[in-house]
């Protein structure tokens, strides 16, 4: 026990966002997963019967499904040791002033600047597994845009939720999608009406904050015909004494001529299993874009997907993985072409250092009849030392002749010549390596909102310190 405590203390010291607030949760289900736990969650949330049934059926699917036999090692997850629902507060807040001081302090420590709070027209902050604060800019409400916590969305717009919930990612999709479907809590619900362009990104910050807390947020975004929206999600998590599971589901419906961009910067602390299913269904002439940055977690398995379901639909996945000590990031993307003249691009950049392991795993599928479609995959890996590892697992299934398909891959080490060149100008090895790494990921970073790009740059420089030389 002594060593465990020391280890925990060391971890807490190593992890710069490793603070967490005293647990003030109000309602908590007992440890472990069972029918009664799922029923309790649904009952506590006062959900309609169809949702309770959806959860219970998903629980059965979860129990029947095998753990994935590919990808990262998930054998140490013990589902019985987790809490599946904690509610931090019975009260919902609508104004910033009403948000408890303790929670504001947490945000201050993450460093959300005052100016940004104003810039963000709507902040959906998830504290533990509940949306506690939500403020939506008036003009959007007038335009008919809905931006709520998923639980609120279900209460206020049950028909809309019921129409789309679980349609892009059915609970039987995979074991962790089933788990999420059974115990989901929090996440965002967004509906953008026809022809409405949401010009300022919608943002949410997620944090896990209770020991052994599993987080299962569920996000559903519907962009109606000709509308557009950019959703940004970023997270930093405090440290835990035992492993923690994050199994989210994000479903996005992009209707005819609509455009959705979903940006994620994932920086879970390095004890979190981050197993997320993300998928967009893109209709005729719609555009779906995933920008997916993974820095943290112990293990990540995440492959954002676009199903190009209508003629001329476009999909793009930009995936970034930064695997440091003890991390295994298995990420990539999927592009499924179901209609003619669809175009897809997957760009993956990974960096591995200090025993870190990153894998690109991707799939391009073009069905018979999706003529004139184009798909392109590019994955580049950068390995910083002999201890680290990078793998590529691409799958291409092309059942149509009239298509264009390209795949490029590269693996490189930080070049001795590049380092020497930069160092010959006076930079030390850490600075030189940071520059090279930041330069390598620049094509993805430039797509991020400025504040995220700055934070990412800072995080990478920090992670280089002491790891080089």
């Amino acid at each position: 026990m002594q060593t465990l405590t020391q280890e925990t203390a060391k971890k807490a010291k190593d992890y710069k966002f490793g603070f967490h607030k005293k647990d003030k949760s109000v309602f908590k289900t007992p440890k472990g997963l069972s029918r009664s736990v799922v029923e309790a969650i649904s009952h506590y949330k006062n959900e309609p019967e169809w949702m309770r049934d959806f959860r219970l059926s998903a629980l059965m699917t979860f129990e029947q499904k095998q753990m994935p036999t590919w990808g990262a090692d998930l054998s140490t997850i013990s589902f019985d040791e987790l809490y599946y629902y904690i509610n931090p507060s019975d009260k919902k807040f609508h104004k910033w002033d009403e948000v408890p001081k303790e929670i504001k302090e947490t945000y201050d420590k993450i460093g959300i600047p005052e100016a940004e709070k104003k810039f963000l027209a709507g902040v959906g902050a998830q504290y533990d597994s509940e949306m506690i604060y939500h403020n939506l800019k008036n003009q959007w409400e007038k335009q008919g845009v809905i931006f709520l916590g998923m639980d609120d969305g279900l209460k206020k717009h049950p028909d809309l939720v019921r129409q789309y919930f679980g349609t892009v990612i059915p609970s039987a999709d995979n074991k962790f999608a089933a788990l999420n479907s059974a115990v989901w809590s929090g996440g965002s619900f967004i509906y953008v009406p026809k022809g409405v362009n949401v010009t300022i990104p919608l943002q949410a910050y997620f944090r896990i904050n209770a020991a052994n807390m599993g987080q299962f947020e569920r996000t559903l975004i519907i962009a109606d015909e000709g509308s557009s929206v950019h959703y940004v999600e970023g997270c930093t998590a405090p440290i835990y004494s035992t492993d923690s599971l994050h199994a989210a589901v994000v479903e996005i419906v992009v209707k005819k001529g609509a455009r959705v961009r979903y940006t994620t910067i994932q920086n879970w602390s390095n004890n979190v299993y981050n197993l997320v299913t993300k998928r967009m269904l893109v209709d005729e002439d719609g555009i779906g874009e995933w920008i997916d940055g993974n820095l943290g977690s112990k293990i990540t398995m995440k492959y954002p997907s676009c199903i190009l379901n209508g003629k001329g639909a476009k999909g793009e996945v930009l995936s970034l993985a930064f695997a440091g000590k003890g991390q295994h990031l298995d990420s990539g993307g999927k592009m499924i072409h179901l209609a003619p003249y669809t175009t897809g691009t997957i760009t993956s950049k990974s960096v591995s250092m200090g025993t870190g392991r990153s894998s690109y795993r991707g799939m391009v599928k073009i069905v018979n009849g999706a003529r004139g479609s184009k798909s392109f995959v590019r994955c580049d890996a950068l390995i910083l030392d002999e201890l680290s590892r990078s793998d590529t697992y691409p799958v291409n299934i092309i059942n149509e002749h009239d298509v264009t398909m390209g795949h490029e891959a590269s693996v490189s080490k930080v070049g001795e010549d590049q380092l020497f060149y930069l160092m010959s100008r006076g930079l030390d090895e850490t600075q030189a390596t940071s520059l090279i790494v930041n330069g390598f990921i620049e094509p993805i970073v430039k797509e991020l909102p400025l504040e995220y790009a700055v934070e990412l740059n800072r995080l990478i420089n920090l992670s280089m310190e002491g790891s080089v030389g």
Partner: protein
Amino acid sequence: MKKRDKLKISNLHAGTIDGKNILQGVNLEVGMGEIHAVMGPNGSGKSTLAQVLMGHPGYKITKGKISLNNKDLTKLAPNERAKEGLFLGFQYPVEVAGVNYAGFLRMAVNERTTNGNKISPIAFRKDLGEKAKKLAFIDDISIRSVNEGFSGGEKKKSEILQLSILKPKFAVLDEPDSGLDVDALRYIAKAIAKLDTSLGLILITHYQRILNYIKPNYVHILVSGKIAKTGDVKLAKSIEKNGYEKYIKN
């Protein structure tokens, strides 16, 4: 005191880390404001000398010493040598994708300041802009990535630009003239000639051509990893006419 500043190479033996000996006892002393041209046939060790002076990790010094103002550089990392005032102009400047040229160079300038006063971004941009203009850079170099997508001529000019911004005490220019057309050569050569007069320079070159613009105080002939002959500009002219054969036989 300044007068005594010297880059001193004493009995330098060096080779690749896998054991191939290249430099076999090079001796060279460069004072402030002096220009030393180093010429020699292919494979004589000219580029190796340049790389070893700056501390390339692919080479190992087996014997001898490099010192700058009596400070022993032999065991220092490249950045530490740079901070002592040494600069290497690369024959093949390395591309670093995605790394902003101006940002990188300003970082280097700030790393080299000894008094802790960092240069303001505005002052730096102005300096960079003016110096780039003198070297006839057409595109705005401050927004480009380090050497990425530069033409052959731009790469060479970029080295001289960095030299003029970083203001070292001693510089080694490894074939700054190779692969250039007549106009580019003239720009580069004039820019080198206009550098701070106190700069001590080792100019490695294959050809006498650049010496039409830059007048060396000394010309050294490097053969088989050793300086076979030292003279003045006349030596370079004689090489141009008669080749290196005479020295190789020795």
